[in-house]
């Protein structure tokens, strides 16, 4: 156990801080939440700046176009960008945080060369086509079919809850390449494909979330042709690849947000001091406890990052432990914020109210808390499966 920084890491931090100080004032104004093209352009522009400065794909392997930075440098990057109030990954979430890492881990050299550089440059945006109307928690029950026709798969089916579908160029898509039968269990016939979102037969219909905006969509696929060469991993072995994607999604994708939550908690303390709520000992103690929880979550993040580095870069099921603790703490943070703000928490012109609404998705998206508990109980603790 060693939590001190080397000279090299301190230099890295100092250079980054200087670069952020210079770059952030040059950024354009943030677009409104409903301006999707504007949001895409903004997020892409930020990613491009990171790329040009050598900060894109910092911790990705060098042969995947990354910088091969240490996990510590990556965490320093997250701390510093957050501290400076830099933009969040936004529309690049899927590409940078789980589709890209999956391709880096499982793709062929040609696939890495095709898909990873545009993600790092901010040129191409990805979305995730996993969930279906009939396959949410029970993801392996998915029914979207892909039938081989020469060098193509012909795909028919539908996906749902696809975040950023409207602005995405590519979709990490799960399809059934083999029907379920007596001898083929449901998780055996799945394949993981990269589907271009502009392919004929793809229809995106935005869905309005409870926050009022269209963050996700339904995606209908009607005889969409996708080259067989776009398959990552073997045919029918997509469930294994999916586990890799989910371990990135649950294990490391939220890392940056923990830093953001710590800053938010600081803002909340300032607000409470200013409006007098700080004098309420019950509320003050609740804030103190949250400070301990987010501190510990940051340490758990460091822990998981060192552990995943030791196991070859793919995070383990420990990500489920983190996600459970984090989702709960994040919702508790915004419920506490509502207590600090009182009735003002109902006014949607404030950032707090919107963030509180979006925090409601944390115990659902990327696998519900119930599903994470099943995973922890069965795969970590070894409890038996029920009948």
């Amino acid at each position, binding site marked *: *156990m*060693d*939590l*001190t*920084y*080397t000279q*090299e*890491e301190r230099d890295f931090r100092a250079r980054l801080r200087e670069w952020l100080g210079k770059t952030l004032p040059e950024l354009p104004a943030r677009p409104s939440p409903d301006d999707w093209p504007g949001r895409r352009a903004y997020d892409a522009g930020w990613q491009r700046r990171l790329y040009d400065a050598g900060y894109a794909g910092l911790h990705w392997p060098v042969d995947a176009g990354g910088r091969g930075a*240490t*996990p*510590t440098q990556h*965490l320093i990057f997250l701390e510093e960008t957050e501290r400076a109030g830099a933009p969040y990954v936004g529309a690049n979430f899927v590409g940078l945080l789980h589709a890209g890492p999956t391709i880096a881990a499982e793709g062929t050299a040609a696939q890495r060369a095709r898909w990873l550089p545009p993600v790092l440059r901010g040129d191409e945006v990805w979305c995730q086509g996993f969930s279906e109307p009939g396959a949410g928690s029970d993801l392996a029950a998915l029914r979207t079919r892909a039938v081989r026709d020469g060098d193509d798969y012909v795909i028919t089916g539908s996906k749902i809850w696809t975040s950023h579908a409207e602005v995405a160029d590519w979709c990490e898509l799960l399809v059934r390449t083999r029907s379920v039968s007596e001898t083929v269990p449901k998780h055996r016939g799945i394949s993981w494909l990269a589907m271009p979102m502009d392919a004929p037969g793809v229809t995106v219909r935005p869905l309005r979330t409870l926050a009022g905006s269209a963050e996700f969509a339904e995606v209908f696929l009607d005889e969409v042709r996708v080259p067989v060469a776009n398959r990552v991993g073997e045919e029918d072995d997509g469930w294994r690849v999916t586990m890799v994607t989910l371990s990135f999604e649950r294990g490391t994708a939220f890392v940056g947000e923990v830093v953001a939550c710590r800053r938010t*908690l*600081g*803002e909340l*303390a*300032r607000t409470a*001091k200013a409006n007098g709520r*700080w004098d309420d*000992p019950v509320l*003050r*103690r*609740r*804030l*103190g*406890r949250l*400070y*301990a*929880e987010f*501190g*510990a*979550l940051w*340490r*758990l993040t*460091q*822990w998981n990052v*060192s*552990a995943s*580095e*030791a196991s070859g870069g793919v995070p383990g099921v*420990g990500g489920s*432990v983190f996600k*459970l*603790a984090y989702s709960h703490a994040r919702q508790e943070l915004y419920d506490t914020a509502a207590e600090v703000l009182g009735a003002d928490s109902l006014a949607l012109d404030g950032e707090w109210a919107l963030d509180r609404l979006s925090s409601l998705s944390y115990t659902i998206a990327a696998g519900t808390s*119930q599903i*994470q*508990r*099943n995973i*922890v*109980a*069965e795969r*970590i*603790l*070894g*409890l*038996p*499966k*029920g*009948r």
Partner: protein
Amino acid sequence: MRAVDFRLTDDQRDLRTGVRDLLAGRYGREALRASVDAGGTLDRRLWRELGEAGFFALRLPQERGGVGLGLPEAVLVFEEAGRALLPGPLVATHLAAGAVPGAAEGTAVVTAFDLGGPGGGTLVAHLGEADAVLGAPSLPTGEPVPSADPLTPLHRVASRPPAASGAYRDEGALLTAALQVGGALRTVELAVRYGREREQFGQPIGAFQAVKHLCAQMLVRAEVARTAVYAAAVTADPAEVAGAKLLADGAAVRNARDCLQVHGGMGFTWEADVHLHLKRAWVRAEQWRTAGEAEELLAAELASAAM
């Protein structure tokens, strides 16, 4: 070069295994139950053996006869002690090593005014068997009172002398938090084991999701607390220590409660060990730094960091 590295070194791993084996051999379930039957009197011989094994002198420099290790190693050792439910004023005697004669060697039993409470608190653990009280010039007299924890005898002292134990407070809180983490992890194991063995409705109760989810939440609490304790041992930052104590107290108490629930009627018996974990967790939660104090300290730290 990777500097911020949370993984245990090989030496730290060996230390942990060594302590676990030692305690399994010297203070297994039979010994635990024997000390319950003996009414919680401290086994002086075991205390000396712990001393010989370096338990108390762990952080004393080598030139002063100690082992010369640091807080990160100490929390690993205390975690194991918590797991084994090892009784006695372990933290106070460890803190007294080098300051009170015999503490380092385990020939003296040293307790502390570490129990909080309204008005400073007048309960002292293990006073009847103590040779000294940490930071106090002499042994106070006290009346024995029945204790909730069969392995933590309590005395009520008439008045609490102005204690010097404040100086030891952060280290005491951290090592107590490590004991709590050990207990929290142990109760997950007990619950999981029982969940696999006990059958109802024709299947192990651990196959029922309601039971599974209790166990999963137990692990989450224990792992978050454990990380907090390890990190605080490295930084020794007072706010981080307070956070670690807060989370570890919560994990130990809550886990013991859930473990009791998983055991059903068996969990309510004297015979099962679950109540021993719960009662000890309650005691430790009152020691060195209570939840209320920790939360206030953390709030103050949050406010000053945010301003």
